[in-house]
């Protein structure tokens, strides 16, 4: 069992919410999904590959019959699944430092949520509601989200140069090649092993 595969960490969390609060939270997510600047912070943080929140109402747990007993719950639940680069502490420190307002809007509807600042009670809460991953797969254990983005930039730039290269004179090519190097020069980081998690 591990939450870690290469450069990626899988975090699972589940928190209880009073059902009437679920509606408010859904409203917030609706806004988040439709107002681009709100998403921009997540993009700028740049160490999340994928993340999702799933509101799970108390009567909508999958029920398949076949002898399964129906759930009887008082709370709705908020599930959170994140795929991030770096250590648990680093991730939560950064979340708390720069996204506290957004996080509070997401989790303040959950029971006992202490707020994203200060960070120590927030970390204690996350640690409490986190459950561990049994199996974690990534197609790119050697690459972080930043590496993936860089690689796509390099690929696009290379494709564009190679389309033009044939028709160029050597002098034109040298000039185009310099432009290409300038386009990719900030995106050439090595991929490889992740540092030891601590």
């Amino acid at each position, binding site marked *: 069992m591990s939450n870690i595969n290469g450069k990626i960490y899988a975090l699972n969390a589940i928190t209880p919410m009073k059902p009437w609060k679920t509606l408010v939270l859904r409203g917030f997510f609706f806004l988040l999904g439709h107002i681009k600047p709100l998403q921009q912070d997540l993009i700028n943080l740049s160490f999340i590959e994928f993340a999702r929140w799933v509101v799970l109402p108390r009567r909508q747990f999958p029920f398949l019959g076949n002898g399964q007993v129906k759930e009887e719950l008082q709370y709705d639940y908020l599930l959170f699944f994140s795929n991030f680069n770096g250590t648990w502490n680093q991730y939560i420190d950064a979340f708390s430092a720069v996204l506290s307002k957004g996080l509070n809007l997401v989790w303040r509807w959950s029971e006992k949520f202490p707020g994203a600042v200060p960070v120590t009670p927030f970390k204690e809460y996350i640690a409490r509601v986190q459950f561990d991953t049994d199996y974690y797969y990534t197609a790119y254990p050697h690459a972080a989200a930043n590496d993936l983005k860089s690689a796509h930039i390099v690929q696009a730039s290379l494709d564009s140069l190679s389309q033009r290269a044939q028709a160029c004179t050597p002098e034109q090519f040298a000039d185009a090649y310099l432009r290409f190097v300038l386009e990719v020069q*900030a995106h050439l980081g090595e991929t490889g092993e992740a540092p030891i998690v601590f």
Partner: protein
Amino acid sequence: MSKLNETDIQGFVLRGYNLPVARYFFLHFEDAARARMLIGRLLHHVTTGQLWDGGKPESTVNIAFTQQGLAALELPDATLLSFPVEFQQGMKKRAGILGDTGLNSPERWDELWRDDRVHAWLGINAQSPAALDHRCAAMVELLEETGGAVALAAQEAAAVVIDGKPTTREHFGFTDGFGNPDYLGVGRSSQPGQGKLLPNGSWAPLATGELLLGYADEAGELPVAPMPHILASNGTFMVYRKLHQNLATFRAYLDEHAALYGGGKEKLAAKFIGRWRDGTPLELSPDNPDSSIAQDPNRSTNFTYGADPEGMRCPIGAHVRRVHPRDAFGFNGKLIDRRRITRRGLPYGPFAAEGEPASDTEERGVIFMALNASISRQFEFVQQQWIEYGNDPHLGNDKDMLMGNHGGRGKFVVQGDASAANPPFICSKLPNFVELRGGDYFFLPSITALGMLAMGLVDPR
């Protein structure tokens, strides 16, 4: 915040003494009672943070302890176990986390650091070699009189002297010592660029708790600290690393690559660091050094990287940009405010000026001492994530050009522009310019806590 009690804080924490010579003794305690007596006697010598109204003293004395040292003083187990894990483990056991492997691995360290015999660091700084010898003789006499400790070794360190004057140069020829942060209540005057960046673009001192235990930190809480509070408050943690510099390797590498680089040798050297050798920041003066900037405290550290996201002026992987990224990661620098460290320390070994012969084998380097409230959150994070790794600046696994444990692999990209004098350039197959020769993690207590240690009066909690 309330005014700091400068008489309770070791002076070494509050200020760089700017004294040109130093000797660091490494002590081993053989008997707890005698060691406590020694600390009691040392208390009268320890330099506090009180202002030097009568001018600089001839010499200073400061002391710090390893986990083994505190255990040898017979602190209660409950207290010892309340120290942060990384301090309890010591730096050697953190080698994997820190990237201290291969050429930097503990089996290659100086003998002093290969076992766990170092209990305390006793640091003496002085105005002159004579003053240093004088104070050190008094210290040795105290050790012998009390029988409280044996000195396992002494490390000499001294500012590089050029034209008869002590300087802030290090052995590769760069002017050093620009980077220390300002903290609330600590500095007498603060310098733009040295604290934390505010949304309006101005700079403010960092929260005191980033340096000292017992005060609020940048997360709005007290830093993790040992119990009881009175043992921790006004104290801090110190990282000691002896960093050997391979001067011949550095010079040869620079010469070899400068021959291929269109911007010239001095510019390439500046691109490695992010500052010209005289200290002028590349970000402020990308084409040539400008001593009027380097020597002006209002300008020498007063810059950001926001207008240079592609690293065309200062490369994204340049040393100073890595270890103090300012606004480079966005969010007005908010992501870095809890990762800052305060550097103390001096070069050691003979200085070889440019043009004089130099080898890698000569004992030469820098004694790196970093002060921080949390070794794991501050020093270890910087070392692991910003020196030995590159994800935060979007550089993948690329390491710090200067400090990285490259082992002959890896690369450093000098981003450029379309001009002939500032071409893009890649330095690959990087050797280790710097090698770790040992060190450890220390707790640097307040004067009150030193008194408690001396009296054996620490209650468990």
